């Protein structure tokens, strides 16, 4: 992948994080306002509320998207910082591969958790 493509995805991921994190923050911290407007959940941190959110397609997709965007944005940013330390080409390649594998691994694990929560049944 060209560096410019990686950079544009970095920008796009930042935009996705901004939107989704705003929704997340609103749900978590503006709960009383949302309730007054007929939306939102009572006691957002209670297990039942968390479970109910996890059972909705919107939240499952949002969590997976947010996870992907945050992982890409964070790991690409860290890679850029490390590359500025005058690393040798070989080490740069190792860092890229390690970050790519770590990112994919964490994404698969996190996405599995979101999908599992969606499919989970309340006992």
């Amino acid at each position, binding site marked *: 992948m*060209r*560096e*410019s*493509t990686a950079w*544009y995805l970095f920008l796009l991921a930042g935009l996705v994080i901004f939107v989704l994190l705003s929704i997340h923050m609103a749900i978590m911290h503006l709960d009383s306002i949302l309730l007054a407007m007929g939306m939102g959940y009572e006691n957002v941190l209670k297990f039942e509320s968390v479970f109910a959110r996890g059972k909705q397609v919107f939240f499952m997709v949002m969590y997976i998207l947010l996870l992907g965007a945050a992982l890409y944005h964070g790991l690409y940013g860290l890679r*850029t910082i490390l*590359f*500025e330390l*005058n690393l040798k080409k070989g080490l740069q390649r190792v860092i890229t591969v390690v970050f790519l594998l770590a990112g994919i691994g964490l994404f698969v694990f996190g996405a599995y958790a979101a999908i599992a929560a969606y499919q989970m049944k309340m006992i």
Partner: protein
Amino acid sequence: MAEQAKVSAETQDTEQIVKTVTFHILRYDPNRDAKPYIQDFQVPVRRGMTVLDGLVYIKENLDGSLAWRSSCRMGVCGSCGMFINSFPRLACQTQILHLESNDIHVKPMPNYDIIKDLVPDVMPMLMKHKSVKPYVIRDDMEELESPTGEYFQSPQELENYIQFSYCIKCGLCLAACPTVATDDEYLGPQALAQVFRYNRDTRDAGNEERYRLIDRSGGPWSCHFAGACSDVCPKGVDPGFAIQLLKRDMLLHKLRLKKRPGPAPVMGPPEKAERRPNIPEPPEPTV
């Protein structure tokens, strides 16, 4: 008479010693010294004296072995970039009295290797500059070799890049850049500003080629927009701004949201115009 007296008073004013300052100069001769050291010199200062004048005074009167690089003495050639009182500046454009200090600290520009004393090795900058093809690229080689006219460019099109063409390659922007300080691969504000300058030139058709050259780690994406390059530029080029515009142009180009007009056509000499009788014929081309 009054005019003559005024000129005479001004001349006297510039000849009168105002104060004496101490130049603290970093000295280093790689062939002789294990490491750089600071040497002090007392310099009498007259009104209008620049740091470069101070260095000339030292070389002529105190220590002939002091080395630096300078040429035009008027901020045009870009040779005398130095780190003066913790700021990258041109020595010829820095008035000693404007520094408002009795201590003038002069070091070679940071982010460059030292050749000797105040002489930095600017080759890495020049190589980076060369690597981005800083010249008009066109397909019509025949027209370039033997021009039949001029490439058309409107004053508005000229305005789009003229500011960025004032670069004198003094290298002060690279001396101030925090990214250049850690990343050798980074092309730096000078070269990237020139990429923008030539890509915005309507006579040029090499933007795709230059985008390919800089689309790598160490390209415009490494710029943190600290803005230090623009702060120190003695010609007002504002390379930091150029890099941000370059990023935007590259993004729009990638998304095909901005169509670049084709290279400017050749404009022949005016057809129905007549030369006024009092205007002589131009001389024959020498090249």
